């Protein structure tokens, strides 16, 4: 009996993640507009954009290969699986044991690998710019992410996200290394989701865009899938920060329906808070030059490494 319930909760989480991703995107755009004293489009606009794109005709370049057409689905699937594995409103879900934080980082790496290939497929110079810079960011972001995983795993004693969340719930002591890991995670999140200091999500200005450059040749339903995957990635990072550093409100396995509802509400609240803070950061910083970003990501790597070193040196940090 509880197997079906567990599977139902897992299915709920996967559906929830799909549903909330565009909403989160719409909310952040709304808040950004408000901060810039504009009305801005409604928070449901991303849903309409996706539906519009799905119905539009796909225009392919002559030399687009089979990879160009199948790639987007692969990217969407990888990102969706990664997002579904991060605990949102409850920990200890049925399939949470299949992959830990390192595997989730690697899944995002697979998605990025394919995205860079798609950017290069048609052989346009903008695709090249996007792909080469994306991979350069990745060479620093991924080690930083691994270092953050090490720090958190050394504190919590496990790399499973559910175990980490339960540990964070029980032991309430503030640790220096966790602070460093949080700062590093925020920097990596900004870089990975192509937010302001690293890349401007809103613009199509050729020479500055990185993430958008790779999607340049896409149209119609393929573009919709890729946009959806980008939104899912944003949601993944925010729920990751929420799950590790703000674990309150997460329902334990075997709790009643009421606690799951409380978990759901707190999760939506966390998303809103995350979106708001993200917009605050974005409106307060200007975009960096491309070759300032390696130093920016270098800081994240150093913070992560420092956190790990402190954990290695003694238990108390």
């Amino acid at each position: 009996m509880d197997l079906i319930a567990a599977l139902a909760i897992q299915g709920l989480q996967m559906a929830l993640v799909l549903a909330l991703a565009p909403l989160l995107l719409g909310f952040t755009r709304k808040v950004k507009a408000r901060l810039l004293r504009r009305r801005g489009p409604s928070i449901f606009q991303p849903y309409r954009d996706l539906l519009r794109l799905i119905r539009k005709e796909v225009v392919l370049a002559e030399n687009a290969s089979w990879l160009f057409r199948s790639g987007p689905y692969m990217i969407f699937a990888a990102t969706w699986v990664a997002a579904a594995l991060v605990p949102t409103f409850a920990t200890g879900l049925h399939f949470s044991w299949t992959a830990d934080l390192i595997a989730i980082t690697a899944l995002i790496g697979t998605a990025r690998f394919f995205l860079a290939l798609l950017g290069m497929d048609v052989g346009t110079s903008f695709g090249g710019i996007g792909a080469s810079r994306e991979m350069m960011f990745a060479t620093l972001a991924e080690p930083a992410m691994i270092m953050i995983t090490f720090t958190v795993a050394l504190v919590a004693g496990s790399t499973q996200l559910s175990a980490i969340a339960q540990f964070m719930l029980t032991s309430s002591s503030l640790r220096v290394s966790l602070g460093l890991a949080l700062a590093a995670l925020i920097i990596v999140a900004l870089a990975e989701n192509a937010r302001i200091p690293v890349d401007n999500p809103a613009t199509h200005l050729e020479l500055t865009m990185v993430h958008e450059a790779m999607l340049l040749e896409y149209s119609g339903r393929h573009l919709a899938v890729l946009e959806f995957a980008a939104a899912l990635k944003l949601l993944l990072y925010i729920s990751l920060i929420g799950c590790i550093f703000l674990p309150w409100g997460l329902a334990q396995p075997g709790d009643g329906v009421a606690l799951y509802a409380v978990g759901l509400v707190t999760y939506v609240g966390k998303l809103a808070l995350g979106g708001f803070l993200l917009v605050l950061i974005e409106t307060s910083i200007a975009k960096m030059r491309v070759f300032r970003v390696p130093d920016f990501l270098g800081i994240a790597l150093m913070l992560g490494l420092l956190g790990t070193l402190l954990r290695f040196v003694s238990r108390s940090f």
Partner: protein
Amino acid sequence: MPLTVALWSVAVLLSIAFLAMMGSRLRAASVTVYAACLATSLVNLISAALYLLNDSAALSARLPIGLPWIGANFRIDALAALFLVVINLGSAAASLFALGYGRHETAPARVLPFYSAFLAGMNLVILAGDAFVFLVSWEFMSLASWALVMAHHHDEDNRRAGYIYIMMASFGTLALLLAFGLLAGPTGNYLFSSITGAQQPEWLHGLVLILVLLGAGSKAGLVPLHVWLPLAHPAAPSHVSALMSGVMTKVAVYAFVRIVFDLMGSPAWWWSMIVLAIGALTSVLGVLSAMLQRDLKRLLAYSTIENIGVVFLGLGLALAFEAAGMTAAAALAFTAALLHAFNHSLFKSLLFFGAGAILTATSERDIEKLGGLIQPMPQTAFLFLGGCLAISALPPLNGFVSEWLLFQSVLTSPELPQWSLKLMVPAVGAMLALSAALAAACFVRAFSIAFLGRPRSTAARTAAETDIYSRTAMGMLLAFCLLVGILPGPVIDVMAPVVEQLVGRAMPIQGHDAWFSIVPVAESRSSYNGLLVFVFIFLSTLLAIQIIHRFASRSLRRGPAWDCGFPDPRPITQYTADSFAQPVRRVFSAVFDARERVDMPAPGDARPARLEVSWRDYVWETMYAPISLAVQLAAEKLNRLQFLTIRKYLSLVFAALVILLLVISIWT
């Protein structure tokens, strides 16, 4: 039984070599040789695998040849069986690939006899039971591969590569010879079984470790001794480079493991410091150099260096844990290292086969002149893409599993007592993560410049798909990569007896978990389930495709590339290998002193603008150039002694006589 099968297969391989030498003129020579090698390797593979699966008790045999008083001893135990499986799987794949690839060989007489001799040499090294047989087969393997590297000897660089290779190989052998001299002692008991038993002082084992690092490290390609590898591996025919990169480096790893873990028993803690430092340095430097290469096979050779660095990282961690008495963690690290070695032999051979396929299709190794090969060669592109995913350690393939196990073993190391190790292991973990990320960037570059975009030369445009044998070989290897990636548990259980024999304790049995997930230390700490991750990705892709195709419009139109309104079909406008590497090169420019010089002509000047990229290979400049300079200088100085007059030669004799008489009169 498996030992006799292995010895008989070596004998068959040597006889094939001899026959090939005689009949290399025959038209069907190459097909028969490769088919025979394929059959022998398969037989050897099956017998070794069966041996490994059930009892794997150590068997030994003695032939009356070799050193007169101890004869030639051969031995097979769990470790040897595992590496026999790795070697024979690699050689079977290479022989299968060569059935198709071999037809295009210009000088079969120079490749066929040495190919099966090379296979025989590698198998013999694994089976060797005493120092003499080990070194004879080790050097015989180097000699055979040197002859293969010299197969296309008309090209000046191949000759230079062959020369540097044979010199590094003999340096390595002499280092190993000194190591065995120390282990065997003045009385000369060269038997492995008697060496393991002998009690030797601590400093002696330390010195032997250094010598083994020089010997086996030079063959594997550890950093200061790696210079020959990117020269020699590409020079050989592709199926041989696959064997050299994928399999011969594993023989070097076997040598290191056999001597350090088996013959020398309990390690000191400071050994792991050296091995970790060299491993980390090798992995990062290897992949950074790979990032700069334009020749596909050189790029793959440098990436071999990176993966060997990762393997030695695992071995270093295992040494550290064993010295600190943490056998569980040591078992984890050792299994991670062995698994990564096995994985690397799979995907590296696959990638070299891909490079070979491109070479036959376009007779071009420089990826700058390729591009758009995915159109004419879709299946090779798919298989090469699989190889790139595996080597970039991305789930659900096998590269990620060994990388993941390595990260788990790094996480278990805070309990290490020594302070220096406490500080070193996190840095090593960071460099490991950095090298994995760089590998992903390097192989995105390699795949996209070679296969995607528009063809940059007529050769790329007129390419054709390779023959069926090559594709089956590549397909088989990709299937293995996927299989190990999805079901790592059974593979780890197969390796358990090896780890048990060498580190004293194996990893907890992975088999009994219902969903085939692997649990390195404990259920609570971490687990990874390759199968479910693959199933989830596969299902969600199908789901997405179904939903999109039900609701979305199906209309599709082909048109010129959008490219922000500047459609320019000329291939020159595409990103090239150097431009793709430019961001990473600039970030890590300090490592290679990479410089870019732009020569922009004044307006109105018709001269084309030039961008020159230059970087320096510090290892070559600081170590190898001075040595060869010193030798030439000494040769020049001493050369004058050839042109003395008779009188001066007599004065030499006279001086020698007088000096000796003085010595005798003073001394006695």
